[in-house]
């Protein structure tokens, strides 16, 4: 990558941030206080996993490569970017303005190391030697190329935990297959089981498995730390996102292994918005007033049905014999869904949701990100979203932990690091480089 014409301007921003006392690393608290993590993770799935460690007090030091920027730094998700898809990036994106990077990397320190320079490799090993956890989600083989196998890391630091996250896991004939969220969802079966019967799968509109694999990796790391606290023993961790995905398919998998069910040529599979068990009906997503506005309604029993019918104004069709019992409604769902949809189409979405809920019917507006953030009093009172300042981005919103702890305090102490923001602190104060060495390394592109 060539030098950006804006490099000087960006360097000033990084220097100012590094000198800001409010952003200076400070001693942490929480259940992971004292755990230092040499974090090679990148992209969404890796960064989202180690964010969990940083949120609960670990000192997570992200190791980045100036010549191969982390994709979330450069996607067109930043203030002022407008309505573009993530493939429509800028020719010279500001790596410090990236919103997705900010979202995934709060509470972490950021350093840059050039692993193509032997001095960079040595510096990296010093960082690992002062850490007790190493994390990575590179394509298989990258860590091996640097010699950073678990066996070698054990010679650098006692009883280390090394978490390796990948799509396919680190053994088996497809271990080096390339993947990202949608590929994992396809191969694990999660995409195929999603859609209307008789059509192509609708699959997933997000990298669900990037998030879920990150949460599983986060749990695996916490489990390993818990185990080490109990026993003193470190461990290597191998997480295959595809295997995690298969564990999320649900009972359909046992229907296959126990009952020999074939889903591929089944004209009634997948189920769309319906459920097979129990025989709930109506159970679907229905139009409400406005363009592309919808409400989800689940009716499981006679009481729910009576309540729905009353809320819809006791229409004549609701009394027809074909809708008289739960079993009959389940049998006549096509007709039922059409009639319910006609009745909801003129209703205001939140008004209908609250009125149905007041009658004891499970219902929710299909909320957009805007709705979730701006129109949802339940989330607002929970405090799951919160704001932090960022030196380049300004005030920004973050996705927190959807858990209230009665004792543990979460410390959201800083937004994401600018590129190399913590180089001086980490390399001189933590690892003991002299000022001269530091300046030489910076000038010669080692860091």
């Amino acid at each position, binding site marked *: 990558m060539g030098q950006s014409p804006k490099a000087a301007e960006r360097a000033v921003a990084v220097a100012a941030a590094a000198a800001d006392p409010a952003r200076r690393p400070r001693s942490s608290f929480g259940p992971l206080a004292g755990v230092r993590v040499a974090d090679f993770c990148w992209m969404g799935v890796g960064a989202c996993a180690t964010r969990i460690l940083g949120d609960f007090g670990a000192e997570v030091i992200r190791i980045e490569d100036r010549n191969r920027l982390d994709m979330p730094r450069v996607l067109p998700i930043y203030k002022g970017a407008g309505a573009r898809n993530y493939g429509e990036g800028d020719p010279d994106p500001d790596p410090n303005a990236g919103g997705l990077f900010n979202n995934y990397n709060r509470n972490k320190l950021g350093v840059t190391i050039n692993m193509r320079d032997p001095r960079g490799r040595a510096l990296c090993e010093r960082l690992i030697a002062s850490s007790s956890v190493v994390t990575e989600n590179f394509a298989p083989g990258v860590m091996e190329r640097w010699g950073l196998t678990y066996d070698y890391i054990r010679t650098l630091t006692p009883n280390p935990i090394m978490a390796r996250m990948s799509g396919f896991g680190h053994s088996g004939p497809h271990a080096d297959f390339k993947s990202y969220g949608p590929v994992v969802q396809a191969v694990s079966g999660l995409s195929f089981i999603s859609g209307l019967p008789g059509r192509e799968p609708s699959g997933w509109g997000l990298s669900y498995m990037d998030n879920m694999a990150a949460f599983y990796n986060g749990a695996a790391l916490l489990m390993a730390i818990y185990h080490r606290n109990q026993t003193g023993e470190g461990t290597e961790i191998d997480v295959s996102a595809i295997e995690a995905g298969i564990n999320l398919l649900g009972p359909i998998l046992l229907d296959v292994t126990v009952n020999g069910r074939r889903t*591929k040529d089944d004209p009634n599979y997948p189920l769309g918005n319906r459920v097979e068990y129990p025989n709930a009906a109506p159970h679907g997503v229905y139009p409400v007033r406005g363009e592309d506005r919808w409400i989800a309604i689940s009716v499981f029993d006679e009481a729910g049905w009576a309540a729905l019918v009353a809320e819809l104004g006791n229409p004549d069709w609701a009394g027809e014999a074909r809708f008289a019992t739960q079993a009959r409604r389940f049998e006549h769902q096509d007709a039922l869904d059409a009639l319910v949809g006609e009745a909801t189409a003129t209703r205001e979405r939140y008004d209908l949701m609250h009125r149905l809920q007041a009658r004891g019917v499970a219902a929710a507006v299909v909320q957009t990100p805007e709705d979730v953030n701006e129109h949802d009093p339940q989330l607002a009172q929970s405090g799951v979203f919160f704001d932090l300042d960022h030196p380049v981005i300004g005030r920004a919103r973050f996705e927190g932990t959807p858990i209230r702890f009665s004792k543990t305090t979460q410390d959201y102490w800083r937004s994401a690091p600018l590129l190399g923001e913590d180089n001086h602190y980490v390399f001189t104060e933590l690892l003991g480089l002299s000022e001269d060495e530091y300046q030489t390394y910076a000038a010669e592109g080692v860091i």
Partner: protein
Amino acid sequence: MAAFHAAGSAAPYAGLKVVELAEDVGGEFLGRMLAEMGADVIKAEPPAGSPTRALGPFAKHVESPDTSLTFWLYNSNKRSVVVDLEKGAEAALAPLLAGADIFIVTLQPARLKALDLDLDRLSARYPRLIIASMTPYGLTGPWADYRSSNLVALAGGGPLNMCGYDDHSIPPINPGGDQAYHAATAFAHIGVLVALLHRQQTGEGQLLDVSMHGANAVNQELGNPFWFYNGVNVQRQTCRHAQPVMTQSAMFACADGHYVYYTLILGDTRAWNVLVEWMDEMGLAAMLTDPEYQDIKFRQDNFHQIQELVECFFLVQDGHDAYLEGQRRGLPIGIMNTPEDLLDDEHLQAREFFVKVDMGPEQGEILFPGDSYRFSAFGSVPRRRAPRLGEHTSEFLEDVAA
């Protein structure tokens, strides 16, 4: 690296006692995760059994409380003890909670109140106990007692808005599996681990209030960031990322009826050349080998034509062939496996992913999905079948009496 073979140490939750009062698969999945890593999980069930025992599909299509595959999947490695909460919930639970480390409870606030089961009071009475409350909306707030379902939770939380078809006259479509519950479980597991680490540090337990609604609201990947930064909402698109604007299809039908997933990124010249070389070897590159296609702008201007050629290219191949050959060439391409396809996958077989579980003399051995994470220092515990209703009640009463 070879696959890990379970090493010497006991699984990390060995010695932990868990009491699970769960009426949905989210709470049950958390209990299973703890049990698989060594915890002794007692599932407290009402005399009529957990509501999930009534959910199909059923083994060999025989409906009974002990043949629900939903129950089997989410309740392996647990013990079942019948507890009648209607006769005084706290007193009924006391023998189980004495000495317990973790209490999983999925009842919403109104139900807790009706049973006079006060979680703050329990937390004070058992100071080392970690109480994992998992409810649709959390224990506080204006919607705390609203009803939910998997579909309703995905709708309210936001992921449903991102899933469906290009045709927006079709409503958003549920992504399969009970993923709203699974997301809550993933966070609850993290929460329990944080609480275990907190207890290691301080000796104190605590109450965790996990909200399924909140878990789904923060599980939208790009959805929230596009709103936080760009101030725009994403739009659902068939089997690919919801984005602020519509993009080209990334799903390609194959000759054998399978689909493959592949995102054509025209700006990535390396991937472009790999694809065109592959197409050319099969005699299907047409004019894509012409020099003007080396220009990114030219490719972008001719996107529809390229898309059609790629569609034809995949349509003449079998899905698995295209998957394996594309990956061999270094392209991130995925076969859209059906659940039954997974049992024949050579990679999963080599990693011994599926495990046999003995369901007893009537049902025999069946295959379950194996571990979601593997450790060199310790293995999980062998899978045991889900318990029959009340199977361990007398055993438990004897333990208490002893």
